[in-house]
């Protein structure tokens, strides 16, 4: 199990004077794709700089690919491909030479770096455009070039900081597909920092959620999503009566007009809903399983569970009521 971990930190702390950017972070990131989530100021950038070995930790320790982040920064950066969030390309250079140069900066022989630059640009979909100046590229093409720079030396771990930032739908899809392909067919690991939950959901199996420098939650996205299953029904006539009847039976209900979401806690929740509807004479026009998006879950954790460290197990073992993704008051939801 230990061998499967690409990042491991123990009580990792980084302070800038009185400001604690990372607070006793205990992380275990397995191989594969992991999403790094968190609002602005959560400590994502500090965490990335720390694992790249660029800043010294105040306390605690950590390893990336088995290398110590405090003493082996150079080796870590040789084995990692970092794709920054912001522009990092010279607009007056052709993409092929920019990617080649990024390989040379890693210590690749110029001839090999050039050959590899052709391969990676082909892989990210810029094969035909590689001799164009980067200044003439669209945002999507620039992002792809950044990815090619990160992939040139075939790193074991790719850190992609907001890879789909500013992309239109098709470019975003392509980027996500390329990252997924890198993980699945390339057998490489990806740590993807993003605020677009959708993208994280599509690429990653695991997630880390940071908030105010602390670890708010970590685990498998699948597990996270499993804990909050609901059934959505559209009711015609007697919605209030139905709501009361279901609450009386101890079911977790939240409602917005004729649409209600009922916590899917038991096997027979569906039968119970239908039974209640039959009892009060309400018509159920539509019924389907509602799967909360990662964004809902993110808000749920942040708002309802506090910011203490949580793993998938913690989340799954929480009482159902506490796990409820509650709607705001104006939508008929109760207080968190």
């Amino acid at each position, binding site marked *: 199990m230990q061998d499967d971990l690409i990042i491991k930190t123990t009580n990792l702390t980084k302070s800038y004077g009185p400001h604690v950017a990372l607070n006793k972070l205990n992380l275990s990131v397995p191989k594969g794709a992991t999403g790094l989530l968190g609002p602005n100021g959560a400590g994502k*950038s500090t965490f990335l700089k720390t694992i790249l070995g660029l800043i010294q930790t105040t306390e605690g320790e950590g390893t990336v690919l088995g290398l110590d982040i405090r003493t082996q920064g150079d*080796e870590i950066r040789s084995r990692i491909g970092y794709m920054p969030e912001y522009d990092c390309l010279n607009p007056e*250079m*052709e993409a092929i030479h920019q990617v*080649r*140069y990024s390989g040379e900066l890693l*210590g690749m022989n110029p001839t090999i770096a050039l050959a590899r630059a052709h391969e990676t640009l082909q*892989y990210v979909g810029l094969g035909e455009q590689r001799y164009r100046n980067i200044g003439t590229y669209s945002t999507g093409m620039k992002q792809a070039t950044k990815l090619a720079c990160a992939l040139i030396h*075939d790193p074991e771990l790719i850190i992609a900081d907001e890879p789909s930032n500013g992309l239109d739908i098709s470019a975003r899809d392509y980027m996500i597909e390329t990252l997924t392909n890198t993980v699945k067919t390339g057998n490489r690991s990806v740590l993807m920092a993003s605020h677009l939950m959708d993208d994280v959901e599509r690429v990653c199996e695991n997630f880390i959620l940071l908030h105010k420098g602390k670890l708010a939650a970590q685990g498998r996205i699948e597990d996270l999503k499993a804990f909050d299953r609901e059934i959505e029904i559209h009711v015609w006539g007697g919605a209030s009566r139905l709501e009361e009847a279901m609450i009386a039976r101890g079911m977790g209900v939240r409602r917005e007009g004729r649409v209600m979401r009922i916590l899917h806690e038991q096997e027979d929740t569906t039968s119970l809903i239908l039974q209640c509807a039959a009892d009060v004479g309400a018509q159920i026009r539509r019924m389907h399983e509602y799967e909360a998006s990662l964004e809902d879950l993110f808000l749920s954790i942040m708002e309802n569970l506090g910011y203490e460290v949580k793993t998938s197990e913690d989340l799954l073992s929480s009482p159902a009521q506490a796990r409820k993704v509650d709607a705001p008051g104006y939508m008929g939801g109760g207080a968190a």
Partner: protein
Amino acid sequence: MTIPETTSSITAPVAPVAPVAPIIPQPVEYAAETPVTGKVRLEAAWGSTEGDEDFTTTTSSAPKPEGQVFKPQYQQWNGELNPRWMRNWAILRHHLLGIFKKGHRPWGMPIRLYLLVVFIASLSDVGLTLVSALIGDSGLHSIWGVSRDNLYGHVLGFFPRNMLYYPVVAALLVGGVISEDRQHGTSALYFSRPITRFDYVAMKFLSVALIQGLIILISLSLYYFAEIATMGRGWAWIIDTLPMFLATVFSAILLIFTYTSIGLSLSSVSKGKFFPGIALLSIILGTKILAFIVSNLFDREILYLISPYDCLAHVGQAIIGTQPTYDQYSWTWSLASLVAMNALALYVLTTRVSSMEVTRE
């Protein structure tokens, strides 16, 4: 409307034309009970019923082959990465080769042209030495040939060389070397790789210094060797003049180092290439003019100590051995001032470079 009855039977075997999917021939028969179709009407209208009952036709009814999107496959690479010296060489090479060819650091065409003009202009000493050798006039040769004053003049002397050549070359070169990494965020490319801040600064410094060195030192060497070659100088002359040649080389290195350190420190505090360039020129030329005015008005030369050019000239005069033009204070003051200027510039440079971010700039 009556529909003509037809009894003709058309068999249309379809040849397997598409190599991808074999097409199974489907005979179509038309009879009285067959629903009226376009083909039947066509047959009714144009068929002669004389021998064309056996009419067969071959139609290409193969479905259009679907396009195939070739999904790029991730290619693994099992090569070895070279050590630190190779990474540093890559930075140096990137900046140096950019002057001569595409694919490396893109120096602007005006910069490249200016460097060429200055290089050719710096070779004027060589040309004049050749001319004096050709004419064979010793008077002319004493003016243009290698001497203490002329060697000093080649590096530090007289307008326009001290105003338009090397300060402008330095300003054009240092302008964007670090500031553009800030502007474009390319610093992230360096620092997310195993490049240390020291290596980054050292290689940028060295590359800018080497480009200046190529112009100043190569032209100086050509001047010296032109004298040897054209005037047939022997070992005695070489031994006699080598110390002053080396002193001139040292002065040139001091000039290159000072201009580069001040210029790069300005580049490191900026996000564009204009400010560092213009600020370097302002410092070099502005302090010189100010000190000159004060010297003329108040007969006080002390302000020359804040002028990088004058300090360099003063130290250069002392070590090459020409007649000093600054006589109110010792040249060691100028040397101390140069050390202080360089220390301050390098301090600013290192502080600013260590604050350059990888994740966000």
